[in-house]
């Protein structure tokens, strides 16, 4: 079977598809591509069904070789793309001849680039997904130099003759995220609620696919000693541990947690969060509680 070989895995390169929705009641995280829109678009440009498995890089890119001719699209975080040392285009289909070497360089902005191969990648799957989950350990291990991953047959439809929409909207030094308040807003003081609307938080180094750890004005609880019993968590949840410094949960977030969630950001902001480097500033635009929750 044809495959790709990882020549340089970079800081962290994983296999990612649409993840494992529907198993959260067994404590299986959703996982899947952290920046969904970029992953989806890279697959579309490679001529794949949108749920195909891609590589997801982290900051430093990766280098691969394929054993058959294959079309590759490098999207997501913009980076230099070369084939056997010659510059190629980011964000559009690149023909990779069997045996030649494609390098996706360090992200120029953002964090995660996606390498979509026509036919998709087919590493071992479990619970219906090829995705690596850093929290649960499900899926293929993070890739190492020398790893090989099977390539699926080329799709019947040739790659679309389009290119990545410019300018790429996925990154900024300061993000403003719509924050849907709840479910546990009432665990926090009125000052904390006000702070949410005016404060600025910074993405720290201790951030990964599980979540962004943010640093900023502490969000105080009404009763600092109260303990929340474990309850289900959604992607994009802004959870506030005892120290008041929130965590914005990403693709590999735990399915349940014992700290209150003050609000939740939607899919667009989750994608932006997946491309937010340490040092990125985040502001929240609170969306009031819906009328039905009163």
């Amino acid at each position, binding site marked *: 079977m044809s495959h790709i070989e990882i020549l340089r895995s970079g800081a962290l390169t994983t296999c990612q598809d649409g993840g494992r929705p529907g198993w959260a009641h067994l404590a299986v995280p959703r996982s899947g591509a952290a920046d969904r829109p970029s992953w989806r678009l890279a697959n579309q440009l490679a001529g794949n069904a949108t749920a195909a498995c891609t590589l997801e890089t982290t900051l430093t890119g990766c280098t691969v070789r394929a054993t058959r001719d294959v079309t590759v699209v490098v999207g997501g975080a913009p980076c230099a793309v070369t084939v056997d040392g010659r510059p190629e285009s980011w964000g559009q289909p690149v023909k990779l001849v069997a045996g030649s070497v494609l390098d996706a360089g360090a992200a120029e902005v953002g964090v995660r680039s996606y390498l979509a191969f026509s036919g998709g990648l087919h590493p071992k799957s479990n619970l219906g997904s090829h995705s690596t989950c850093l929290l649960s350990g499900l899926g293929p291990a993070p890739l190492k130099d020398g790893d090989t991953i099977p390539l699926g047959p080329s799709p019947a439809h040739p790659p679309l003759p389009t290119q990545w929409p410019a300018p790429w909207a996925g990154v900024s030094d300061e993000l403003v995220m719509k924050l849907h308040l709840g479910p546990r807003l009432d665990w926090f003081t009125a000052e904390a609620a006000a702070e949410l609307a005016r404060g600025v938080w910074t993405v720290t180094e201790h951030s990964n696919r599980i979540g962004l750890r943010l640093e900023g004005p502490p969000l105080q609880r009404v009763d600092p000693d109260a303990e929340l019993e474990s309850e*289900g968590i959604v992607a994009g949840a802004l959870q506030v541990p005892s120290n008041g410094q929130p965590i914005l949960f990403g693709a590999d977030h*735990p399915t349940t947690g014992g700290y209150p969630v003050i609000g939740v950001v939607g899919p667009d902001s989750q994608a932006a969060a997946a491309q937010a480097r340490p040092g990125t500033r985040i502001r929240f635009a609170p969306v009031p509680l819906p009328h039905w929750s009163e």
Partner: protein
Amino acid sequence: MSTSKTGPATGWLRALPSGPRGVLIDCGTGEAARACYRALQARRVNGLLDATDLVPGATTVLVDGVDEPELLAADFPEWALNDDAEVRGETVEIPVCYDGPDLAAVAALWGVEPEEVAGIHSAVDYESAFCGFTPGFAYLEGLPERYRTPRRDSPRTSVPAGSVAVAGTYTGVYPRSSPGGWQLIATMTNPTRLWNEHREPAALLVPGTRVRFVTVTI
């Protein structure tokens, strides 16, 4: 804005928004949450509820991936507490050896002799209330309040797969080796049964499963 953290014992449900496509149903008690989870499952099976995930918690159920949360929120109080015993799961027996490293400490906390822990722990009919922490780890509910047990002061960096542990009024079995802060009282003889990705469902102790521990000697 309410600041209450616990509700009345029964009949108390609140729909809380959990993002644009989620509703967290706060049921006030574990018993009400389990009834609500069964009711939600039944509605999903009958095509009355379209949701990506139903995630039971200690006293809540999260309904995630719904197109119109406001419709669910308006609808649920009428049916969510109608417990239907017919949809409860089967009983799973877990063979264990009561040889955990915290057995003596737990006995002291419970005010009993170490050899009495096995009898107390294995006499309870448990129910898997919810899963969390790691795939297939079930929070088994049923231990009487007088056996409430604190976590260890310092979590272990590695707890072997198959370790049977207690914390709060829950008991659980570690499906794989992982860090853990619960007190270890016993060992399951064949822990690979707990999680098997090639089985449907992969977890042995899915929420709603009834569980008994059975003493074996190795």
